[in-house]
């Protein structure tokens, strides 16, 4: 071992760090070029989680723009149609705390489908222009109707209708959609510490 290393430990440490830093830096730089990703995949992933109602309640013109905004640092709790489950999924994806839904943008509602009272429809096509997913059929002066299976329940067609003939009808449970619900959680409450009893439990 050369004697100067022992004499100048600072220099030696510096050299060692540089010696380590340079190749690793080069490796990282190479990796950045070699494995470059195209576009903004995180926005795509976020977009896949969003409910695609395209309702604009978040303040962005559609789900894709909101996804891009989230990727850019926007709050994740502005999507009422997605509700808690979407916020949770976004929080998991982005590895952040899941905040409660921002009430400013609306409340989580039961899924509904738009229904046009066809007798009252005057055929103005305003709802057709408003529908973000082309789920309304019709033409000028012709009665319109909603393709129920394509309707996202975004509410956007209700406002423009000049004769208020569009209702948002919640989807009823049927024999086909019925299933067992989770058992009422009495003692298996997952919340912990002092306040974890449900109100009903405390009353009991």
């Amino acid at each position, binding site marked *: 071992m050369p004697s100067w290393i022992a004499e100048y430990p600072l220099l030696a440490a510096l050299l060692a760090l540089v010696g380590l830093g340079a190749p690793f830096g080069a490796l990282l730089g190479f990796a950045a070029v070699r494995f470059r990703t195209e576009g903004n995949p995180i926005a795509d992933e976020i*977009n*896949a989680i*969003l*409910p*695609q*109602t*395209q309702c604009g309640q978040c303040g962005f013109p*559609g*789900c*894709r723009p909101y996804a891009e905004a989230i990727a850019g640092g926007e709050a994740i709790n502005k999507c009422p149609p997605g509700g808690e*489950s979407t916020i949770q999924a976004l929080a998991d994806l982005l590895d952040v705390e899941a905040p409660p839904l921002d009430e400013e943008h609306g409340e989580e509602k039961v899924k509904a489908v738009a229904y046009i009272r066809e007798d009252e429809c005057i055929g103005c096509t305003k709802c057709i222009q408003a529908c*973000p*997913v*082309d*789920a309304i059929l019709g033409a000028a002066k012709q009665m319109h109707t909603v393709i129920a299976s*394509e309707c*996202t329940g975004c509410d956007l067609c209700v406002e423009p209708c000049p004769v208020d003939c569009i209702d948002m009808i919640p989807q009823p*449970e*049927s*024999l086909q959609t*019925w*299933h*067992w*619900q*989770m*058992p009422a*959680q*009495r*003692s*298996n409450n*997952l919340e912990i510490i002092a306040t974890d009893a449900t109100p009903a439990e405390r009353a009991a």
Partner: protein
Amino acid sequence: MRRVHDFHGGIHPAENKHQSLQQPIRNAGIPPQLILPLSQHIGAPARPVVAVGEQVLKGQLIAEPGGHVSVPLHAPTSGMVSAIEDRPIPHPSGFPAPCIVIDCDQEDRWAPLQGVANYRDCEATELLELIRAGGIAGMGGAGFPTAVKLAGKPGRAVKTLIINGTECEPYITADDSLMRERATDIVEGIAILQHILQPQEVLLGLEDNKPEAIAALRAATAGSTIEVVTFPTKYPSGGEKQLIEILTGQQVPSGGLPGDIGIVCQNVGTAVAVRDAICHGRPLLSRITTVTGDAVEAPQNFEVLLGTPMQYLLELAGLHPERCKRLVMGGPMMGFTVTTVQAPIVKTTNCILAPTAAELPPPPPAQPCIRCGLCAEACPASLLPQQLFWFAQGKEFEKLEQHKLFDCIECGACSWVCPSHIPLVQYYRASKADILEQRREHAKSEQARQRFEARQVRLAQEEEEREAKRAARKAAAEKRAELAAQGDAEDPIQAAIERAKAKKAAQQDGQPVAASVSPEAALRQKLAKAEQRLAQSVASGEDAKIVSALEASVERLKGKLAEAESAATESGAT
């Protein structure tokens, strides 16, 4: 002796089968009214082919299959169709569903039946069509259309035909009594299935707790290629997947069907129904149903017409309504509660269980899971129920799928052993439904996204087109303005024509051009000439440039003419 295999887990609940085996199968007779749900099977509901008020005969088709995976429905007795409407059906939801209601005339008049004299002369496809027309769906409890199951996937040979006589659920003895009393019918039915499937081996599996049935079947199968295999009693050995493992040592691949490993399973009741349909042309009109539980006076097996209200049957067995707080269709392990006795017996009703509260006490409140692992020991699918429960509580769907939630057969063994009385199966059912719903939602949102994006593209395109048109119009207008500003002289052809015309006119009239002729007339003349020239050039196929220039000049002249005319009329008016 065939070596039988064991499957993982399993439990030994109290059998409680002796109560309903005291008497032979009893005919339940004809109730005043039959209620026939259009969907008594897995698949599309049947479509009614009768109208309200129509008289029907026993065995007459009253609803046709609603799709490929569907079965028809026949009138179980003669009478009049009094309604086609929503009625309570045996379903855990308690929701009503469309039913055909028949008011029975008690005469039991048959429609003409046409059996096959010798099924061995028939092609398999013919027999399958007869089975389908007979309205037969799996009688074991699931109710999958039998013809569809037998047809399998084309080109796949069936190695083993398994006939399921296990009946591992406590209380139920419908198959047991059928095997005791109608062993020869079963064997005939199996022979038909054999003829259809051409399997290498036929195994009739049943638990060793049914000695009479075993003896009867051994006697009936003597000399045939059917092998009666018995194995130790353990719940749920009658589950299709478990029975396959017991008899063959093979496991059905996850998400696959027994057909994938060359196996077809059929219930003994189904075999009898197939025999009736083929040999006698008799469609599925009745079935054997066990009515049992401490709340009925005389537990026993009934041969009962499909559509018979449960109330009628329970009263025949001597129900004490005050003792009965829960009514189960099926067994105590996998059956579901029925909330009204008005619900009818359907093709899959193997048992009506009317227990007292002492017999099957209401579930006590659940205690916390202590991860004792009894459930994992009992699980016939080798799952980790306690982990699944944990994830189900937290709605961690991804973890649930990782832990193979969808391989759960909902047999209830885990709940049965759970010392904390946790309704595990309910957690799994709810989680499965939630996951499926999430998948559906996701598919729907994906479609919405595509539609939204398609719309965006379309709007952008329309906008672009509009923009393009606007730009084109603007360009044309500019060009016109330019031309107008520079005057006709710019156009050499036009200028030449003008000059020539002017000269000619001067020669003809000998007068100055402008003074004598009114401006409109001159323009009209010019226009006529220009049009003539244009027609000539188009006809002789001149250069496109010239043609377009001529067209432009014609247009211009028309414009000028219109202007001049309007000016003239104006001046005339003033």
